[in-house]
């Protein structure tokens, strides 16, 4: 759809460019489905925002109740709360909400591609309860991915009875997902990008409009209730001298390695733990919680929960680089354990945490050896967040915009892009399958890998087209003239240039027949039917040609600059032959 462009002013009447679908009245009203869906997207955003506000309040309440207002090392509740609550979570996941394991991103993607967007409301309720308990009790997980799934589930619940077309019904989940994620992150642009980049995988005006509307409305709701301040304070950032980009490239490399280690840990442990006897599922979250509790008890309570406060501290130089490196390592361990044990909760916040700590640590080491570097710990931590996001979640666009949106500072875009590119390439070479694709495959599902899709070679019309058959006839020519022109040609079908614009075609047999019927002096224009041939441009995907080649033996391929200039033609055989040969 996005591949269509607006027709030129002199585009032939038979243009295949259905730029805007004809508005179909929604049953019982003049409101089109498209517009009604946009209205619904706003409501989805509002309800998702309200749900996420409640979710965040629940996490806070749980955390205060279980860990105390200021979780401190060497306190018994820090040691025991994650383990004891882990037992409860396991029981809930096994007996009440079996669909709530994991982060929520894969499940939303699976809903989109397998279940026509359907995510049971029960899943949203279960995710809400279990993830709030898990994060609030100190499991090393974040609230963003569950919010995404809660939003998607709410969207389905709201839109299921609306009698939308299948295409729109499928869109409900991503629209809700964007709203949920935007509300959790307080960052609408990143949420929209993530959903489009990782969940939907394609751009179109229709999708973008509804996703943006839902994301914006949910963020407005969250800011209404929880304030507009970001999840962590951004310190004043310093401009980056070009020579310092090397330092950020090193951070990108370190981030790529860390992301690969993190992803490999999850990929290795998850199937093995799930393969253990069913009885162990009751204890896996508790065991993970106990290990996390021990880490917290013995001096690093910062790694518990989502960890936004620790990120804030890291960005304000609260820790030495050694401590930052330790926290990054412990968080990888803790998050891996929490996640593979089947505890519901997200990976976004831990990824940002690891990135911030790693960034701060790498920056600290670099400044130790090269004191002239001007980047503050905050700058490195912020770039580090983007690096892990790009390397671990493999959302390169989102990672860049996320850092810009969170920091509100455009000056660090160059180091962010550079470091993210390094991290992305390194992580991809070490762990070829992105983490979310890997998880869905471990679950026995085969969802489209958007990273793979991005890199697939697209066949275009120009790959299949061939030179037009000569001669090209003109609509002003008479039947007699046309017969004379085609006399020496071996072709059986000829293209006719119509006036003022457009193309038609005529078969050799038809010309002969017109001649035998005594229409020798009549022009081709007067004899041909008024409908123009559909046409293509060379850069169109080849699938576009498939829609037209069955209607006419030859489809003209026209220059975008001059609709009377014929670049070539394609026929049904040309297209099919091309699909059998690898594209060059």
């Amino acid at each position: 759809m996005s591949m269509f462009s607006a027709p030129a002013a002199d585009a032939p009447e038979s243009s295949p460019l259905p730029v805007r679908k004809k508005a179909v009245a929604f049953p019982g009203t003049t409101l089109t489905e498209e517009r009604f869906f946009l209205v619904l997207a706003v409501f989805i955003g509002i309800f998702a925002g309200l749900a996420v506000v409640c979710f965040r309040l629940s996490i806070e309440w749980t955390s205060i109740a279980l860990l105390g207002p200021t979780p401190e090392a060497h306190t018994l509740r820090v040691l025991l709360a994650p383990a004891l609550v882990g037992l409860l979570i396991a029981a809930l996941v096994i007996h009440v909400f079996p669909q709530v394991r994991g982060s929520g991103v894969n499940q939303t993607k699976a809903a989109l591609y397998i279940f026509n967007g359907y995510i049971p409301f029960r899943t949203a309720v279960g995710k809400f309860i279990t993830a709030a308990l898990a994060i609030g009790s100190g499991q090393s997980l974040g609230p963003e991915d569950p919010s995404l799934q809660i939003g998607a589930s709410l969207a389905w619940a709201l839109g299921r009875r609306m009698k939308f077309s299948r295409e729109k019904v499928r869109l409900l989940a991503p629209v809700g997902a964007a709203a949920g994620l935007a509300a959790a992150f307080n960052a609408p642009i990143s949420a929209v990008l993530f959903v489009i980049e990782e969940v939907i995988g394609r751009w179109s005006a229709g999708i973008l409009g509804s996703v943006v509307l839902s994301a914006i409305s949910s963020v407005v709701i969250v800011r209404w209730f929880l304030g507009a301040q970001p999840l962590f304070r951004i310190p004043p950032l310093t401009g980056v001298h070009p020579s310092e980009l090397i330092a950020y490239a090193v951070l990108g490399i370190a981030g790529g390695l860390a992301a690969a280690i993190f992803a490999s840990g999850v990929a290795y442990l998850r199937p093995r733990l799930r393969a253990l006897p069913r009885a162990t599922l009751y204890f896996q979250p508790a065991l993970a919680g106990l290990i996390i509790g021990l880490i917290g008890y013995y001096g690093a309570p910062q790694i518990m929960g989502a960890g936004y406060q620790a990120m804030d501290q890291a960005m304000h130089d609260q820790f030495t680089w050694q401590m930052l490196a330790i926290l990054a390592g412990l968080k990888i361990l803790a998050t891996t354990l929490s996640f593979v044990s089947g505890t519901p909760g997200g990976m976004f916040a831990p990824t940002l945490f690891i990135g911030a700590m790693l960034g701060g640590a790498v920056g600290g080491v670099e400044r130790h050896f090269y004191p002239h570097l001007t980047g503050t710990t905050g700058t490195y931590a912020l770039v580090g967040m983007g690096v892990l996001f790009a390397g671990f979640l493999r959302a390169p666009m989102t990672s860049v915009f996320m850092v810009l949106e969170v920091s509100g500072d455009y000056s660090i875009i160059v180091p962010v892009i550079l470091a993210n590119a390094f991290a992305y390439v390194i992580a991809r070479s070490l762990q070829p399958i992105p983490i979310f694709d890997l998880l869905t495959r471990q679950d026995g599902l085969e969802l489209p890998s958007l990273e793979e899709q991005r890199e697939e070679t697209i066949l275009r019309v120009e790959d299949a087209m061939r030179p037009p058959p000569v001669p090209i006839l003109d609509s002003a020519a008479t039947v007699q003239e046309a017969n004379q022109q085609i006399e020496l040609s071996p072709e059986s079908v000829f293209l006719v240039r119509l006036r003022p614009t457009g193309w038609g075609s005529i078969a050799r047999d038809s010309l002969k027949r017109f001649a035998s019927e005594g229409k020798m002096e009549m022009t081709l224009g007067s004899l041909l039917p008024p409908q123009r041939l559909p046409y293509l441009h060379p850069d169109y995907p080849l699938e576009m040609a498939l829609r037209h080649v069955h209607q006419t033996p030859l489809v003209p391929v026209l220059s975008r600059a001059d609709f009377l200039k014929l670049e070539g033609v394609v026929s049904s055989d040309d297209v099919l032959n091309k699909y059998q040969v690898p594209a060059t």
Partner: protein
Amino acid sequence: MSRPAVVIAWLTVLAVMGFAAVTRLSNRFNEQQKALARHLYERGLAEQQAGQPEKAVEHFRAALSYDHDNFQYQLSLARALRDTGRTGEAETYLVSLWERSPQDGAVNLALGRLAEREGQLDKTIQYYHNAIYGVWPSDPDQKRFNAWFELIDFLLRQNAKPQAQAELITLSASLPHRPELELRVADLFMRAQDYSNAFLAYQRVLQGDHGEPQALAGAGEAAFHLARYRTAARYLSAAEAQNPEDSQSAQTLEISKTILAVDPFGRGVSAGERLRRIRSIFEEGGKRIDACATSSVNPNPGTNPPAVSPLKANWLDMKKKLARLGPNGESGLADEVMDLILQIEQQTESCGATPQDQALLLLAQNRAGVEQ
């Protein structure tokens, strides 16, 4: 009504209901959070007062995490952070507060102190001025004056005396008649070496309380620095009577009295007495040279021992001249004697100075300006 309109109406109703429910929940949550924040803040305050800024930082931070926008918590956290040396983070908080309320006196004062700690002179002065002319919710005058005093103290520590004097003059002009403030201003004038304004300020205090010992001592010191030794002696005597423990005043008084006793140019001193005093001063100068020459140990390590031989030669020359001088001798010779005394006292300063020496030095320096 068409079906979509009904649906939209229903969704609106549901949204309003949801909004109301979440508002209630959120209000309750906020109340609890604020109460918790207040509790943590108070713990932080107690720890700060107990000299535990590190712990205070943790509790202020926790308080702020439960009440994000609280101005007072942010300010206290910033102050505690500054006290623990984390100036960068303190600045982040303070700048954020300043952006919210650029006229706030407390924020500007904290930023001024932070800039002072970081040695940024211009910024310090700018923030202190903002604080002085800023908004203070309670007891604004006292807080403004305190900020002003801090600024002056800072300037004096930076040895920026002209700026300090300018601030002090402005401050004293806007000061209400409160002896404790005037006394403070007078002390600062003294530190700024603006003795005439200091003397006036002390006098203002004494107008309200004639026996205020600190003002008496201060006025005496100021008069002493203005070479008004008679006035100085009067105030210092009164100060000593009020506070016999005040050794500084006692010493200054002694010097003042010595000056008045030996001053050959004093009012009502007869010609014979003047000559006697000049000779006496001259003899003291000779003793000073001898004492310094025979001193085996340089009392001021790190300085070169004075070369006394040329001084002695000059002194002997002068002795011959003085021997020829009759009771009505020319005043020019008296000046020459005083010049020599000044030279002797200055060059033998490293041998250590007795109150007598200090008196002679001052007398020689200020012979024309000594109060008659």
